[in-house]
């Protein structure tokens, strides 16, 4: 029986969170090793398991994988969340690219001063409601299906749900004005 994947990261969201989401959505149980001290990190570095000296790192299927996107691509493909052909994969990649950019604005949030956090929060909500959410709302409206791509649950849906919840944490009514996103992702999940 295959060993569970092991995730190496800080005990927090950061770049690993999307990987946790995807594994969870695929029903894959995993273990986690949390980096808590500098010594731990240096030990990991010395052991040579961090290809570019960075985390996230995921031990999966006998490989020590690094680079968030590479890990996500692999998991999505392995668990049939990457569409049924190249064109669907391209759509998923485009949509995920968008939500990745959106969530990227929030990666630095915890490291900002309180004053800058207020500005960043407004910035993220503005980008979400004017650039990103309208796109996904329109995709759902145009094809009338329950999922973004191929009438089938894919990585794109999981990533979008993660993004929606993150933005809602900054502004609880961020989805007002996006009825399809509300129904598809919030009402149906909770």
């Amino acid at each position: 029986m295959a060993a569970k994947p092991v995730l190496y990261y800080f005990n927090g969201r950061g770049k690993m969170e999307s990987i946790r989401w995807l594994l969870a959505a695929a029903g894959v149980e995993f273990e986690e090793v949390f980096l808590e001290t500098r010594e731990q990190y240096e030990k990991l570095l010395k052991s040579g398991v961090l290809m570019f000296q960075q985390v996230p790192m995921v031990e999966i299927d006998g490989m020590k994988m690094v680079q968030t996107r590479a890990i996500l691509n692999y998991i999505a493909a392995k668990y049939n969340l990457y569409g049924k052909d190249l064109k669907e994969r391209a759509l998923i990649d485009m949509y995920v690219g968008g939500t990745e950019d959106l969530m990227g604005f929030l990666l630095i949030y915890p490291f900002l001063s309180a004053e800058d956090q207020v500005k960043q929060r407004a910035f993220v909500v503005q980008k979400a409601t004017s650039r990103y959410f309208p796109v996904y709302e329109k995709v759902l409206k145009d094809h009338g299906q329950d999922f973004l791509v191929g009438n089938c649950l894919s990585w794109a849906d999981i990533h979008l749900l993660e993004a929606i919840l993150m933005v809602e944490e900054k502004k609880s009514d961020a989805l007002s004005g996006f009825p399809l996103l509300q129904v598809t992702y919030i009402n149906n999940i909770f």
Partner: protein
Amino acid sequence: MSGKPRLTYINGRGRMETIRWLLSAAGVEFEEVFLQSREQLLKLVKVLCGYHSDSPSPCYCKPPHANSRQSFGSLRIDMYVEGVSDLMQLILMFPFTPPEAKEKNLASIAEKATGRYFPVFEKVLKQHGQDFLVGNRFSWADVALLEAILAVEEKVPSVLSGFPQLQAFKTKMSNMPTIKKFLQPGSPRKPPPDERYVATVMEIFKLD
């Protein structure tokens, strides 16, 4: 009607250059539309917002626990490409850094290239002794690495000293027919970003 891919971007490297490299390496001819003014961009945005996918035929959802055969090759390619892309990100941002930060930035690029990224690929090539990074065949990873090597060399000419495998790699890749063609004058390859490029980007995307 031409079936060629059509690239819409600014007349310069930026984020499109990697795509030009990949298409050219694959021997795919393409057309280019250059954004020259903010008005052009805004017009394009209006058009693009009307974009939607073709309605897909229903897919037969496989249960989420089904394992499809995985290609470790493509996994490796992704890891290498993403790593190189992180390095290229520094190069991408460089023209837009203020003059007083440029020297420090340049040192950072050199340090990241020689301390973090190039050693990885040097080791990969040394260990398997093959010409290509993955699976003993030409792949996106090779194209991406060559692009990065050349881009860093433009800023730090001696950056490959200390990386004999990468020097050989650079020569071999540059001589692959499609790449050789791309490296010649008159190809779609764009020159290094200059002041005019920076000014165009700032104006079109209203960056301050």
